[in-house]
């Protein structure tokens, strides 16, 4: 799986992603169901860290956040 595919899976699948926006070092996302988010899988995909508050999840991926967000959008 590509990094983008792994991140989608870690966020509980494309259907679980309501919104995804890149900031300079992180993907800011809103998911339907926060309990479907798999932090270990996101870290395995290369995330430096995951900040989760309810259904708002920030995946810290470093400065390639833009590129990854584009790859994810292409897949969704």
């Amino acid at each position: 799986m590509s990094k983008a595919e792994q991140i989608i899976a870690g966020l509980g699948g494309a259907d679980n992603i309501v919104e995804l926006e890149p900031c300079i070092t992180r993907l800011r996302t809103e998911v339907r169901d926060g309990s479907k988010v798999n932090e270990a899988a996101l870290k395995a995909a290369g995330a430096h860290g995951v900040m989760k508050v309810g259904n708002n999840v920030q995946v810290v991926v470093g400065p390639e956040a833009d590129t990854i967000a584009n790859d994810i959008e292409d897949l969704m």
Partner: protein
Amino acid sequence: MDISISSPLTGRAIGLAEVPDPVFAGSMVGPGAAVDPERAPQVAVAPIAGRLVKLKPHAFVVQSEDGRGVLVHLGIDTVNLEGVGFELVAAEGDRLRAGQPIVTWNPADVQARGLSPVSPVIALDAETAAIEAIVAGAVAAGDELFHWR
């Protein structure tokens, strides 16, 4: 090669741990320092010489010849301002000297909108031990902020 990272802003240099954001405070994207900027209009300048590889209104990355990237993030959660109050004076892809102007902004306006203007300066993906001589206290834009071995 040892590179000197200069302060992109005028204000007070503080430790990253004091930054009100867990990602930066936890050095998740790399170690570094932060500047609590003077609450007056000012221009954020390049912390090192190199290419401006990323430029957003509220943040930018300058990459040195040897591939090391320094991220400057102007304030916390400032992506939410959608560029309002930030004026770009450089363009993505530009080759810059250290100290060259990149973005003008007013930290007082950011604070007035309820956000912290504290600005992390990050040695992207560096080892914590590679960063030394971190300055604390009053700094002017262009003054040395830390060394990256």
